[in-house]
């Protein structure tokens, strides 16, 4: 009952040209929540996540994290705490490890502990991968492996809210189950919540604590 209130969004709206995707959208996220977004393709699930990460300007409404508006956090910090994982993850050249290390160079993340090998390999193990994964060439990863890279890259910053856009779309069944278990464990380890989308309605039933339907 005394779960920490993380994110509150009120009266959000998104319009593409003349087309209204969603409006009057309210969302309250408390620690432990796993919200599944439910809507047909093209209904603006990705755009909602981008809006929550403030990657796009808000067209209407307000949004706050732990009661504070984005401007008081600063946008880079906001995004490191409300962290969006794109549907098609992007890695730069070099190894997986180089990709996991490079964001630590950002001004915002520099002073926050840095790269921790044991933590990453622990997660890798939970996902059924051994540490040699870190030495792989990131530009030659499969779609599923890229999704794992993106997830690890995000988890290491301990965001308050993870926004997962089809996080398991390219993964096999076993890895999907392992990823869900890892996420549940990670969420329970702190005051954290996640919002996710999936084309697999069974996954939504299985993994979501609650669903949110998008409508105009």
């Amino acid at each position, binding site marked *: 009952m005394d779960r920490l209130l993380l994110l509150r969004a009120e009266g959000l709206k998104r319009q593409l040209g003349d087309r209204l995707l969603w409006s009057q959208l309210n969302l309250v996220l408390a620690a432990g929540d796993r919200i599944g977004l439910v809507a047909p393709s093209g209904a603006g699930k990705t755009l909602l996540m981008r809006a929550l990460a403030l*990657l796009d300007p808000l067209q209407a409404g307000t949004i706050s994290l732990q009661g504070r508006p984005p401007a008081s956090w600063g946008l880079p910090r906001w*995004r490191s705490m409300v962290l969006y994982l794109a549907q098609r993850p992007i890695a730069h050249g070099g190894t997986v490890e180089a990709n996991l290390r490079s*964001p630590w160079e950002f001004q915002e993340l520099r002073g926050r502990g840095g790269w921790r090998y044991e933590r990453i390999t622990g997660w890798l193990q939970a996902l059924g991968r051994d540490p040699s994964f870190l030495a792989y060439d990131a530009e030659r990863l499969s779609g599923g492996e890229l999704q794992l890279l993106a997830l690890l890259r995000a988890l290491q*910053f301990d965001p308050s809210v993870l926004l997962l856009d089809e996080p398991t779309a390219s993964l096999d069944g076993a890895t999907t189950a392992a990823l869900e278990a890892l996420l549940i464990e990670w969420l329970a380890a702190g005051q954290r919540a996640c919002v996710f989308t999936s084309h697999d309605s069974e996954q939504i039933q299985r993994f979501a604590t609650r669903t949110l339907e998008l409508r105009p």
Partner: protein
Amino acid sequence: MTPVTSGALTISDGRLALSALLILVNVGLSAALRLGLTRSLLVASVRMVVQLLLVGFVLEWLFRQDHAPLIVLVGAAMAMIAGVSAVQRTRRRFAGIYLNSLLSVMASSALVTGLAVTGLIQPQPWYDPQYLIPLLGMVLGNTLNGISLGLDRFMEGLRSWRDRVETALALGATRWEACQEVVRDAIRVAMIPTINSMMVMGLVSLPGMMTGQILQGAAPDAAVRYQIVILFMIASATALGVFGVVGLAYRRLTSADHQLRLDRLIG
């Protein structure tokens, strides 16, 4: 021999017309490879001829003037045309792109040409149009290329690297951290022609101004000295102009909220 007053052989009208046939090489190539440049090539050729013939008359008049504001005004008009032309070669636009280009061209060329006429070449008076106008013209012509290349590369770069830029932003990068590679790449590409031309200067290419002076009977050593000053002017003005225009475009296509604003791109 032609009269000594001119210094160089005069090209007759007929031979001038004959030289225009050389453009047929380009037209043929464009047609054969379907480059879609035929129209632009012909328009550019006609414009070049008409503009130069007209400018011959204008320069004769201008060089007789001795009125600083008028000459500066002519220079400003040249810079405006350069600023506008620089944008016309880019594939995409955004609101304010012309203003950005004008500001960058004018500030960089005014600064560099101003320093050259007051400090390096020192004609008396400083606004002597016989010096100021050709110097400015050479600087503008090159800055214009740099600005076109830099702007175009920056806009295309942001588009093609969009996912990478936004991935960095989503992880908590500032807009500068996310975009700096694209900015650097655009400035680097825009500077390549200037650096290339300095590299082979005198070995492969004899620059236009120097050729002109030598044809007019100037001592090669004197012509070379002018050319060196000019090339340094061009290099610094191009760098300043490109830096300015890419910097302004960066500010326009990102927001203070560290967002990528490609929705502001048109085309």
